[in-house]
């Protein structure tokens, strides 16, 4: 009988079952695939679409959140990352969800204060069972708060060692590193071997897994790799042969060149070698991809413009997620022609000079940016980015093998570098934030109460969280739209019909009826919304105020202008009576004029004492709200004494 570990399972019992299994388990790394091969753009709509098939496939876990996805959910998909997990959970009650957490950097790029770390993990742990936690310097103390919170929440802690190659990256080093982790966590964890660039040969990986298991026979190793060189399947097989219990792969209909390899190939190969995947339903794996095939074309724009595997990754070591974006930057920055030089010469050189640490977020971005700057400027280390300086000062953590040479520090910090290093070196202390104050800030920005999950999102990415929550208020729950609509280029055809079921299950039909380009540069669209015609008016953003709609003054603005002697009409109406003239002295409370509006006479009284300097209207004149009526030159106290 096969084993299925479901959400809510007891961690100790489950780990015992995994250790006792003579087979292996599979994690479907959908999030990793999206990030590495589709610039993180696979929509919740697609994950929801294949949720039944993935649920039936029987994975150990579905890696569906974490990494950059929390940010991108809000920034480019306009979905609440928590709500996304809730939705998927309701469709996949028996599948454990997995996240990728950057330790002290959580799902971002900089260290967070400890109270933010703990609160965030606590809230996400309500939906996420398996927590892969790493640090780009493999610095264990950076991961401890997250470790503790995951274990406190009763979830699976998957502590991670990042893997790379080079003379320092010995079995001995990694065995020692795992020992450091186990000292902190105790034995009831999973251990991820994170090969984010897909480095090393199958033999190297097999050997490392064996060495780790020799040192810690009860260790459950979860191998994770990328298929950039086209050979991660070889490494996966070697890992399983050496005793790894869980492996990562993804749905074949979506696999590309920089992310995870096709899952079905792994299953079939290992099956032929006598290794049965625990609990996997092969038909459901195929059915998932049959559906995804139909969706992939809508995401074509996000695939790398350069197709093909890249075995030179063994030299430049860029991780999967950084490959697509680096080419994109090169195209935008006009240095595509120098990519070979950057990737094959400068990047390996910088990597070595900066300590041969693990090229993964945020360390990979520092290496890449430094190498690009060097190549394009022709100068090395003198224009050091703030992040590079922080790395050099070991603000992120100590260099694992050796410190960069002194001349690098001198180039980066100038002649006083020694003083600076002495003064500023060491792990960055993040003072705790005042959570109540942050909540108040958020609520002020939203103009309504915020819940704890919204606060957590705000703590991660303040501006983008507020923008997203405001978007949702204005446009509703838009994750119901398919990628062909959400990612539409060039607008909609006349009479095109968009149908969808909204988040409450109601079907809607929206038809484009007409589009008018108006003289003021605005566009007026008429759409049939559930067979009722509705207008939508759009104004050009740049010329707002000029060609856009006339901005009406608010009552408060009108009142404050009156305090300064500028009397404006508080409502649209007709000037019924003017009881003053220019140069007339007036006192506060004097009636200036009478405005008739909606059959009512409204007297406008002076808000200040002064002298009338202008009467801008005549009796019987129609005035619009906000129009200037009278100007009063305020009487200053000095004038008053005259």
């Amino acid at each position: 009988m096969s084993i299925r570990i479901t959400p809510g399972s007891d961690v100790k019992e489950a780990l015992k079952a995994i250790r006792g299994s003579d087979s292996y388990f599979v994690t479907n790394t959908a999030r990793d695939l999206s990030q590495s091969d589709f610039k993180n753009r696979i929509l919740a709509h697609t994950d929801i679409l294949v949720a039944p098939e993935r649920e039936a496939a029987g994975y150990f876990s579905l890696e569906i959140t974490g990494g950059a996805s929390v940010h991108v959910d809000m920034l480019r998909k306009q979905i609440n990352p928590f709500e996304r997990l809730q939705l998927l959970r309701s469709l996949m009650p028996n599948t454990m969800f997995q996240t990728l957490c950057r330790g002290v950097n959580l799902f971002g790029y900089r260290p967070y204060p400890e109270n933010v770390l703990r609160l965030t993990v606590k809230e996400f742990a309500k939906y996420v069972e398996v927590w892969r936690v790493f640090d780009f310097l493999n610095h264990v103390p950076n991961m401890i708060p997250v470790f503790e919170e995951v274990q406190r929440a009763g979830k699976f802690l998957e502590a991670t060692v990042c893997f790379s190659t080079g003379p320092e990256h010995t079995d001995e080093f990694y065995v020692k590193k795992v020992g450091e982790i186990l000292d902190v966590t105790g034995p009831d964890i999973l251990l991820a071997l994170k090969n984010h660039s897909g480095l090393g040969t199958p033999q190297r990986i097999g050997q490392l897994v064996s060495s780790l298991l020799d040192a810690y026979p009860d260790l459950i190793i979860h191998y994770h790799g990328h298929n950039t060189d086209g050979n991660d399947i070889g490494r996966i097989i070697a890992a399983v042969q050496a005793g790894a219990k869980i492996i990562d792969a993804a749905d074949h209909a979506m696999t590309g060149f920089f992310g995870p390899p096709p899952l079905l190939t792994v299953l079939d190969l290992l099956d032929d070698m006598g290794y049965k995947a625990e609990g996997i339903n092969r038909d459901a794996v195929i059915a998932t991809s049959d559906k995804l095939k139909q969706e992939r074309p809508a995401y074509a724009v996000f695939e790398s413009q350069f197709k093909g595997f890249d075995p030179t990754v063994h030299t430049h070591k860029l991780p999967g997620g950084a490959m697509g974006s680096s080419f994109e930057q090169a195209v935008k920055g006009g240095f595509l022609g120098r990519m070979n030089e950057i990737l094959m010469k400068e990047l390996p050189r910088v990597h070595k000079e900066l300590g041969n640490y693990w090229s993964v977020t945020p360390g990979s971005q520092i290496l890449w940016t430094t190498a690009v700057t060097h190549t394009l400027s022709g100068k090395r280390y003198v224009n050091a980015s703030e992040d590079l300086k922080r790395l050099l000062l070991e603000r992120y953590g100590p260099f694992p093998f050796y410190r960069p040479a002194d001349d690098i520090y001198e180039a980066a910090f100038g002649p006083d570098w020694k003083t600076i290093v002495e003064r500023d070196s060491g792990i960055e202390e993040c003072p705790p934030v005042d959570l109540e104050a942050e909540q108040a800030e958020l609520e002020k920005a939203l103009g309504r109460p915020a819940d704890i999950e919204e606060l957590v999102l705000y703590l991660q990415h303040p501006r983008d969280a507020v923008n997203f929550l405001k978007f949702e208020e204005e446009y509703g729950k838009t994750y119901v739209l398919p990628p062909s609509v959400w990612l539409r280029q060039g607008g909609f055809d006349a009479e095109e019909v968009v149908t969808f079921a909204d988040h409450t299950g109601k079907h809607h039909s929206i038809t484009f009826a007409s589009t008018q380009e108006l003289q003021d540069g605005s566009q007026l669209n008429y759409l049939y919304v559930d067979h009722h015609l509705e207008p939508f008016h759009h104004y050009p953003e740049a010329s707002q105020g000029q060609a856009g709609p006339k901005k009406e003054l608010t009552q408060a603005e009108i009142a404050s202008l009156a305090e300064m002697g500028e009397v404006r009409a508080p409502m649209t109406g007709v000037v019924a009576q003017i009881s003053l003239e220019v140069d007339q002295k007036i006192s506060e409370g004097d009636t200036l004029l009478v405005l008739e509006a909606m059959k009512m006479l409204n007297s406008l009284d002076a808000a200040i004492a002064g002298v009338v300097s202008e009467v801008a209207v005549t009796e019987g004149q129609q005035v619009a709200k906000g129009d200037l009526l009278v100007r009063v030159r305020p009487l200053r106290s000095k004038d008053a004494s005259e």
Partner: protein
Amino acid sequence: MNTIPPIEKVLVANRGEIAIRLCRGVQEEGKRAVAIYESPDAESRHLRIADEAVWIGPGPRKDYLDIDRIIWAARKSGAQAVHPGYGFLAENPQFAAACEEAGLIFIGPSAATIQDLGDKTISRRLAEEAGLPTIPGSGILPPGGDGKRAAVEFGAKYGYPVMLKAVAGGGGRGIRKVDSEKELLSQIEIAKNEAVSAFGDGRLYLEKGIVNPRHIEVQILGDQHGNVIHMGGRNCSIQRRHQKLVEIAPSLLDPALEEKICQSAIQYAKHVGYVNAGTVEFLVDSDDSFYFLEINTRLQVEHTVTEVVTGIDIVRRMIRVAEGKKLDVTQDEVFCRGFAIEMRINAEDPKQDFAPESGKHVAVYNSPGGPGIRLDGMAYQGYTIPTEYDSLLVKLTVYGFRWEEAVSRLSRALKNYRIVGPKTTIPFYRKLVLEPEFASGSFDTGYLERHPELYDYSDQEAQEAKVAKLLSAIHYHGKNIFAE
């Protein structure tokens, strides 16, 4: 007296929602309804509902106020009777007299009754004669300096605030609260001018101000045979600058107190020999003492709540009474069962001091329905808010057997209401119905001033339209700017 020939055709001398209401009553009585309209109202819905229509002039407003023109229209159409509705000429005794002279039945009290009771000082004197308590008042202020002196004396005697009122005013118009002597002196002139412009009568008087009373009124109905009934009280305390926004039947007072007030109204009506529909208004102080305020000699905007809780159609009985028929309802048959709440849904922006949304186009109009919902409206998809007339779109009246039921039904109805184009009072009301003081049914005329937070509402739209807005934005930009 019983020789009045039956009416076959009624000229509805009004516009907007009340014209529609009257047409319905006329048609239900088996008669033909004739609408009148000024040019700006050519697309108004009351024309569609009426059986025929007469164009009376280019307007705006002046033709609806032109007695000769309306008599002409009645003759032209062959109507035997005229129903004035509320506003315009409804309380103009010359109009009632002109109808009588032209041989038309004026559906309302006699010209003499309108004349006398419309005069605040006379109606007050009559109330005192009938034994009703009245608020201390000044009598008509003489013009010029004498009037100002008399006003100042009155203020000194009874203290501030005092209410400055136009003799010819009513329905919340021509009333101002004055808090000091200085303000009193500056307001007298303005109030006079307003009264001249609005009612053609600049006479003013003063009353002692009662701070935040409850505004209670009693619907009465009398026939030409000496029968008078009351149809229970209404609570019109939720007002903004003396303009009613929310009206409730019954009064929400202690039933014994309400009965006492209703009996006072009957006493008054009998004393003056009142015929047809009218409303006697009272102020109820915090110690439950009550004062006669005024009588409105016409159908009220808020008559719907009384119709809903009593089940008695007032408009139809107004027509029958005018035909000389006996009232078919005795006082014993009038029961107020449950609660009705009416809200005036106006095309106004409450956040901008209820500024009218004149000229805006109603792009979407979806109204609620279902149990306990009554709509008296004139808005429709494509309707343009007139700049020439008032901004009332529709009166929403809901019924509930219990007060709490009425409130939750109102909340539901407002949630289901969707008007796109002009800003309306709907989102403001959505917040108001959830406010605990309102929901508990205990409020006075100071309610809105005490609850400035009600203006801090958000304009929520239905979900489907929200996503449609995004689709339209994608179309406009040629891409989804929220996906970049």
